[in-house]
């Protein structure tokens, strides 16, 4: 009964989406907005599917973007978790480092692009550095927060059991930080996608970002919109995958 009604709601919301697409189609058809900027939806989808896997297709660009994003994100997550845990565990490290981290955190990550160019040139490593730098902060700060916010009662349990410091960190502080770290990694992944596109724009590296930029310069609106849609697909898939992994790993949490 509940399932059936949920399904009806889903159908309804697909219907609304179809209406929106139809509205987009009408606007594009009417010529109110120049075809140079606005491709009708069918053309945009055709631009995606035409020779998707071929040499000129969007498939290889999409794959390049996904790979680059994942490399940067994984790198950032590993460094962020390790450093964040150390800072979170050590009150002394927090005193010395936290103010600097607070200063660097609100710095728009893209502002680091010119500096990265100065060091790495317009290269793949420059793009990777920018992605990793940007997605590093959310993970780092989340790990610091998670490791340093252990329920004091749990530390008493550890003391009553005569657990060593190492054991306490490994069995209490780190698992306690897991939900925070995951939240940070989720934000980090979104940031990574944004910076991948930025890096591809600036660095001229093959990928969806460059495709969009090229298409806009050649006034190929369908291909441009196709690229944007694919970026949305990447973002959405990442969000779905990570929230499922999260739900599995954090199944001990009270159902929310």
């Amino acid at each position: 009964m509940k399932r059936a009604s949920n399904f009806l709601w889903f159908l309804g919301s697909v219907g609304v989406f179809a209406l929106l697409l139809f509205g987009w189609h009408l606007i594009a058809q009417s010529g109110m907005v120049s075809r140079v900027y606005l491709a009708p939806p069918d053309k945009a989808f055709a631009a995606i599917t035409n020779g998707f896997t071929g040499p000129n297709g969007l498939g290889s660009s999409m794959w390049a973007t996904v790979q680059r994003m994942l490399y940067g994100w994984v790198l950032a997550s590993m460094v962020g978790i390790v450093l964040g845990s150390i800072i979170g565990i050590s009150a002394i490290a927090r005193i010395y480092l936290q103010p600097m981290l607070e200063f660097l955190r609100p710095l728009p990550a893209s502002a680091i692009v010119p500096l990265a160019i100065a060091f790495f040139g317009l290269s793949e490593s420059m793009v990777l550095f920018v992605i990793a730098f940007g997605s590093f902060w959310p993970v780092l700060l989340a790990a610091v927060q998670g490791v340093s916010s252990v329920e004091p009662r749990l530390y008493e349990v550890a003391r009553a059991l005569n657990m060593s410091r190492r054991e306490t960190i490994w069995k209490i502080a780190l698992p306690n930080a897991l939900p925070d770290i995951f939240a940070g990694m989720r934000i980090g992944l979104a940031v990574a996608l944004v910076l991948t596109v930025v890096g591809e724009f600036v660095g001229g590296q093959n990928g969806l970002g460059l495709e969009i930029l090229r298409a806009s310069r050649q006034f190929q609106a369908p291909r441009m919109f196709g690229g944007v849609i694919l970026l949305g697909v990447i973002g959405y898939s990442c969000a779905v995958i990570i929230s499922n992994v999260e739900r599995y790993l954090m199944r001990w949490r009270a159902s929310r």
Partner: protein
Amino acid sequence: MSQSAVATSQAAPEICFDGVDLSLGGLEILKGIDLEIRRGEFICVIGPSGCGKTTMLRLIAGFHRATAGAVMHEGRAVNGPSPDIAIVFQDYGKALLPWRNAADNVALALEAMRVPKSQRADMITGFLGKVGLADHAQKFPSQMSGGMQQRLQIARALAQNPSVLLMDEPFGALDAMTRQTLQDECLNLVENMGTTVFFVTHDIEEAIYLGDRVVTLSPNPGRIADIHTVNLPRPRNQLTTREDPEFLRLRRVLFDFIQGH
């Protein structure tokens, strides 16, 4: 239980407070505490809030050091937590590891005791069985009721194989029915294992029902007002014990004491 307590009464007391003062942050919390607890004895402590009940418990646990005097465990001064002394906290929701299921929460104590992995599974089943959680080994704390979570905490404490069990208002947050059930189960367990219990509560009837002796504390600074021996036969019974004239007499005495503060 009373038999074993008599048999070992000649040896050093399990726990001994010897002229203990405690100040925390310049504030005098406990003053001149003298108390001997026999092996296997069930001691209940009551008193108005802020009288230092929990602080006494934390002194035995080794979380605090006495400012003057000494707290002794089996004839040796307590100078830090020891696995031989287990604690059951009131706030079970905070004292269990939420990311470990019931079996793994018990395992935490065994890991800390360096029990080899191969032996753990059977022991875990045994301890969970003792507290009636054998069928819930795979459940996470978030999937358990308050009573079950507190049973789990008791199982973890028992897994330490402690000689002393410290219980800090362990049933205070539970509903009346669950509380009575757990009281009886708790009595059964410690009687079978011969464990010494230091039980802090704010519930007068609970203190009489469970205890061999009831210690009353008065506040500012916390000191022992009186110690009442509970002359009620064991095993205790939720109906007959609570109707016993001795029970009613003690209840009256303790009630008057609490009212006086």
